[in-house]
């Protein structure tokens, strides 16, 4: 089998996910040997779009240009990966859909047609997505592991445990016990609980776990003194447009 033809693209986003690939400083030169990087506009001037075995797509859809890029690349790609929280859920930028228009009305202005706003959405709203590497930012070693599995022809497996599992393995103090609004119990792990290990409560950037008890979690935060509106905002901030029905029901 020849080297896989791969591409890295960015829609509306912060480029942090693409940097999470490049910032694998020790492995970057090996990646280049193992894969045929056909396109990576962030760091390459010459980008060949003919066909891809694998494409990593960063960013959310927020402009007509994003839709055009996404559908064009999807049509040429065998396996499309949503890279990071924006592509996965719409991340913080999609929160705009849940806030009052008057909050950002003063920021709106007339734009040319080709750059006008479209509803902020994760890429799965517009095209079929084969895999998701979640997180804001995604874990850079997880990206490497994923690439290795694909190169070996395996089906990559993902962590479905809540963040708390890895947090415990790190021996961290539970921040909920300290009264912090940590979202570890309802958030998909795989991040090695990097935030809590750094002293900060989890904000849920890898998205909600499928089988969390949202009702009990909300009740717990209320008991700790957090108001419903605060809890709602926190839970929606990174879950964006992929809130499970059970979660939505609890946030009504």
């Amino acid at each position, binding site marked *: 089998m020849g080297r896989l033809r791969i591409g890295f693209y*960015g829609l509306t986003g912060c480029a942090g996910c693409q940097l999470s690939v490049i910032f694998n400083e020790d492995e970057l030169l090996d990646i280049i040997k193992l894969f045929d990087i056909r396109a990576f506009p962030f760091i390459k001037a010459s980008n060949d779009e003919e066909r891809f075995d694998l494409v990593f797509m960063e960013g959310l859809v927020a402009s007509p240009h994003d839709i055009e890029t996404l559908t064009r690349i999807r049509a040429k790609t065998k396996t499309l990966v949503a890279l990071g929280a924006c592509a996965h859920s719409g991340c913080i930028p999609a929160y705009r859909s849940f806030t009052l228009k008057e909050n950002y009305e003063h920021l709106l202005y007339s734009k040319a047609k080709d750059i006008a706003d479209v509803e902020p959405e994760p890429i799965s709203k517009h095209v079929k997505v084969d895999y998701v590497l979640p997180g804001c930012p995604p874990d850079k070693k997880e990206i490497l592991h994923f690439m290795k599995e694909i190169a070996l022809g395996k089906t990559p497996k993902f962590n479905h445990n809540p963040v708390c599992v890895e947090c415990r393995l790190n021996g961290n103090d539970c921040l909920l016990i300290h009264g912090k609004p940590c979202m570890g119990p309802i958030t998909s792990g795989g991040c090695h609980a990097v935030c809590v290990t750094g002293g900060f409560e989890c904000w849920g950037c890898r998205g909600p776990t499928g089988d969390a008890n949202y009702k009990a979690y909300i009740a717990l935060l209320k008991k700790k003194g957090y108001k419903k509106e605060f809890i709602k905002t926190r839970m929606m901030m990174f879950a964006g447009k992929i809130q499970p029905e059970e979660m939505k029901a609890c946030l009504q």
Partner: protein
Amino acid sequence: MPSITLNHITKIEGHAKLYVEIKDNKVLKCELSSVEGSRYFEGILKGKHYYEAHEITSRICGICSCGHNVAATSAIENALGIEVSKQTLALKKLMTLGERIRSHATHLYFLALPDYMGYESALAMLPKYKKEVKRALSLMRFGNNLVKVIGGRDLHQVSMTVGGFLKIPKKQELDELAESAKILKEDAIETAKLFSKLTLYNIDDRCEHFSLHEKEEYAMLNSSLVSEKARFSEYEYLKYFEEYHNNYSTANFVSKDSKSFLVGSLSRINNNREQLSKDAKAILLSSSIKFPNTNPFTNNFCQAVELVHSMDQVIELCNSLTPKEERLVKPKLKKTRGVSAVEVPRGTLFHDYTLDKEGVIVHANIITPTALNLKNMEENIRNMLPVLIKKGNEEQVNLEIEKLIRCYDPCFSCSTHFLKVNWKRS
């Protein structure tokens, strides 16, 4: 001279575009714009708590996430009258330096250098310039590691909050960073030498050069703004800088007295070269590039000089710190406004928050360095084109324009390395 329309095309990753119309060797229209979708961060911040701003705004930019973190916490601290400890200030500076190192190294080697070496990318340079690419990776690794040790993660840091740090690095970690910085300083010096030798297009751009300025040190935060003709506090930025929209761009433009100006490494070195470290100053003086300088293309060299200075600063700060656990400084909430200006890799970054008496954000304004520089980039292109077109073919003209844009290290979403220009002859 035939009439020419330079028309940007769809980008493969179209975050920026350039549209130019030329007739009879006169530039009729020059529009450099971001086509990045709008994310309305300032609107999303409205109604959030004062302690959430840094976590949200860090998502504005991956490579400058520390900058947004530091600017947001500092603006809120200024608003609430919080005086952070010396240790917190030192850690903020270390994070800012780590980010500057990884950002400059990424920009210089991965985005800027290939143009000068005749390659499409740093990856394509590998067979012949492996040493240089590896040097870039070493500098990036060090910068990222520094940010991670202080901030808890290399992108979108977690350990800093309003009033202090949630996790304090260990002395041993700081010692290791200082040791690495001593070794990496050689790579920084080599980088400066490399960029001092490149042949640059020459523009004499007499615009104002803005940066923070302090007498005692190479300013990073909490100081006043200066240029050749102005000096004012960060709180007064709206009196001087006017932010405006153009309907062709999703990035804002900024002007002062209707004129463009410049922020970034070149401005910092023009204004603050006396405050550079001894070795950074020596490199500056030994180079054939003279300062104060008016050619924006020298910004790359200035970034490389800042790499050397940053290594010296990291060594000094790490050696002088004896880290200890500290309590966060608790704020007294009140209706108030706070502004902070921070020197981030691409220039001066402003965060401005108004809070209500509950500590809820009622207004936020953020101005990024790229927005500050955008108008000046347009002006430079406008001035370069008539000369370039007389001398070069389409390919050469495009390359020089792209080099100009890249030397600003703009952050439309961090690069315009996909800038292509379509030529139409009418």
